[in-house]
């Protein structure tokens, strides 16, 4: 799982989604791998507004990366190639191959194996609304 995806997801439990502590999910026992990906500045510029910056700072910190700036780069800062390259490396090239993503609200740990995170919920968490109408 790439860091960008970790920024896109939160706990799959419906009740957790609305709580502040469910995001970001916390990496535990993360085994990192750096995978080279073509630099796509256009993509980084497009996607930065969708990134939860506070969440990304927490994740970067937990994975042992140097601190990110306090505020999200905007406007002219997004024309700086080095800024874009740093973000590219963190978001698209950093891959968690093994480990867990843990929800700060319910404590459920989502396993990551071979880079694939499993968000299926066990029977005590996978609640759903039954809505049969006629």
């Amino acid at each position, binding site marked *: *799982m790439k860091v960008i995806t970790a920024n*896109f997801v939160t706990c799959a439990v419906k009740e957790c989604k609305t709580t502040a502590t469910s995001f970001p999910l916390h990496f535990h026992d993360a085994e990192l791998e750096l995978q080279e990906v073509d630099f*796509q500045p256009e993509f980084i510029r*497009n996607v930065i507004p969708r990134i939860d910056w506070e969440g990304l700072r927490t994740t970067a910190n937990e994975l042992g990366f140097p601190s990110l700036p306090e505020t999200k780069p905007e406007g002219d800062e997004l024309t700086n190639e080095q800024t874009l390259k740093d973000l590219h490396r963190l978001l698209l090239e950093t891959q968690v191959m093994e480990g867990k993503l843990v929800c700060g609200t319910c404590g459920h740990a989502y396993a990551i194996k071979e880079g694939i995170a499993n*968000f299926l*919920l066990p*029977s005590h968490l996978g609640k759903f609304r039954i809505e049969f109408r006629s």
Partner: protein
Amino acid sequence: MEYLIRFAQCHENFRKPEIQALATLVGADIEFLSYNDHSPYCVVKLPDNDAARAIMKRSVLAKDISELWGQGTNYDEVHAAVQERASDRWPKYRDAIFSFSVDTFAGKRSQTRKSEIINSFGYMSFEGPIRMKNPDEQFIIMEEYVSDAEQSLIGTKKITEPRNIYMGRFLAKSDRDTIVKLDLKKRRYISTTTMDAELSLVTANMALAAPGKVFYDPFVGTGSFLVAAAHFGALTLGSDIDPRSFRGKDEEREKGEIAALRNYKQYGLESKMMDLFTSDLTNTPLRNCGLLDGITCDPPYGVREGLRVLGTRDGVLKEPVFIDGVAAHYRPDYIAPKRPYGFEAMQRDILDFAVRTLVPNGRLAMWMPTASDEAHKFPVPMHPNLEVVNVSVQHFQKWSRRLMTYRRLPDGETSDITQGRSYVDAQGVMADELNAFRRKVHADNDPLNGIVTS
């Protein structure tokens, strides 16, 4: 300026919507001056050659586009038009290396007659050398007759002379060659339900895949839609309730590699792969905000196996079970419980999901099966925050499937959904009770005409 698009004569229902989508993508105003499902030739108005080239570069259902210099129902009309409308362009090509050819649709011309036709345009006085291979300029005359298909379908009489003739200067070839490049026969990892290359590319075009965008398929399977979106430059994200579909069964995996990744590698698109994960749409981990530019999917129809989502059959949460002190759900062999799911509920959930996760003007392109007979036609599912951009139908003998394309309306705008589908699933917990399409298929008893449904 007027342009002539030459289409491939297949998936007729999707051709115009694809070109319209691409015009939206490149930001060009387009007007269709003539279009007929039974003809490969279509005349459009576009702002300039750059727009025409940009649209054609992305189309998979068209073959090419030309500047239209003249048209008519006989050669007198064509010559008059070419002389009146295009004479100012002739001198530009006077010394160019050129070719001149006659293309006929559903008709034939002898080589002698073709030469006569070409020579009748001699007044344009091109003096450059003629070269059929790699010329600088290609001039084409296209003749449209009546096809057997049109005759048998709508009873148009066959004719011996063309009903429409076009003369133009070739501008750009389409992206149709990619269908061959992405052909499933040569693809490393596919399954019985993998969408073919051509319609996957069309789906990605309808959803406006492009560089810089994020595309997601919540029923990713072997990743056919994502490969198509990646081909057009989007970064792609996929998930599936069954990870074996994209991971591959153990015997299908080479060196422990994720099977769907092999397809990306085969086409040199690794850099367009964002992530794959295991999840269920009804309990998606994706945040509720504008994250995605496009969602493309062919949800399971639940004909062969009933539809399933996470949950217990009775809807009651179960106490966690511990085995040897370890929670059963953390054991590697744990299988999350699944419950039967309704066809209508699934469609509603997909629309709701799209509204929550698409950026404004982001698109959802979703396939859905429907029975071919009128009595079982289902209206298109709608949502107030989604505009139905278009619906294209692919017909099979006993059933058909539709590609429905929606646009996420910016907040504050709503669409009229009164014509939409408002069915809900019948009450029940068994697969058949929850799925009208599955009931219909099983009631028909006949095999689905060789079409594999999932």
